[in-house]
C-alpha cells in the first residue's frame, strides 16, 4: 500500500487523472486510514482551485485597452 511519501509524490498525477487504476485504488485506500494525507490532498486541491480562479491576478486595464486600441483595425465591431 502507498506510504504518505507516495501520496505526496503522486498527488499531481491524481489531479491530472493520470494514475493507473491500481495506483488510484492504493492511494484512496491510504486516504481512508491517514488523516494527514487527507488534509494534504485537500490542501493540494484547494491550492489548485485558488490558483486557477485567477482572483489574485492583477489586471492592468490601461495596458489591455492600449493593446485593443492598437489592433482594433484588424477587427470589426458587431452589433449585439
Amino acid at each position: 500500500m502507498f506510504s504518505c511519501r507516495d501520496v505526496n509524490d503522486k498527488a499531481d498525477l491524481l489531479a491530472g487523472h493520470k494514475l493507473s487504476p491500481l495506483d488510484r485504488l492504493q492511494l484512496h485506500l491510504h486516504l481512508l486510514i491517514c488523516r494527514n494525507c487527507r488534509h494534504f490532498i485537500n490542501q493540494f486541491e484547494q491550492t489548485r482551485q485558488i490558483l486557477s480562479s485567477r482572483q489574485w491576478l492583477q489586471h492592468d486595464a490601461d495596458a489591455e485597452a492600449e493593446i485593443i486600441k492598437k489592433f482594433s483595425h484588424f477587427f470589426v465591431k458587431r452589433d449585439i
Partner: protein
Amino acid sequence: MAQRQDDHLLDRLRARDEQAFCELVHHYHSLMLAFAKTFTANKNIAEEAIQDTWAIVVEGLPRFEGRSSLKTWIYSILANRLRSLTVREARARPFADFSAADGQPMDADKFAADGHWLNPVQAWEQMTPERLVSDRQLAALVHEAIEKLPENQRAVLLLRDVEGEDGPAVATILGISEANQRVLLHRARQSVRQSLSLVMVKVEKHD
C-alpha cells in the same frame, strides 16, 4: 480557458469580431506579463515581447489551423520572442534557467524513513466561492507567494495551474523535459501551499 470556450472564441476571432479580441486580451494579457517576467527582469523587454506576440497572433489568426490550442500557440510565440529578445540583450544566459531541476527527491525533509509525515498536516478551512472573490488578504498572499518563486518554478506554475496547460505542452513551450516540468511544478505548488497555510489553517474553537 476551457477548450470548448477556446474553440468558440477562435471562430469569433476568425470572423474578426472585436468583442472576441477584447475577451482574448482580457483573459491572456496579465498572465502573459507575469510569464514574461520569468524570462526577464527588464520591463521594457517583457512589454516588447508581449506587443510582438499580439501582433503575430492577430496577423496569424486567419492562417491558424488549430493543431495546437489557442493558448499553447500564444505562449509558444511569447516564449520564442522572449528568448530572442533576451539573447539580443546580451545576457550571458536567460534570466530563467528552465533546465534546472537538481534531481533531489521531492520533499525528502518532510518524511520519515518509513514514509510517514514527520509533522502533522493541518486541516484547512474550506474555501467558498464568496471568499475566493472577496478575500483581499488571500489574493495578496497568493500573488506574493507566486512572485517569490524561482523563475523556472513560477513559469511552470503559471502555465499549468493558472492557464490550465497540460504537462507536455508546457515542456515544449519552455524547452524542458516533462519530468523536469513536473518536479518544478511540484515544488512551486508546495511553496504556494505553505504560504496559503498562513490564512487557511482551520482554527480550533475551544469552548
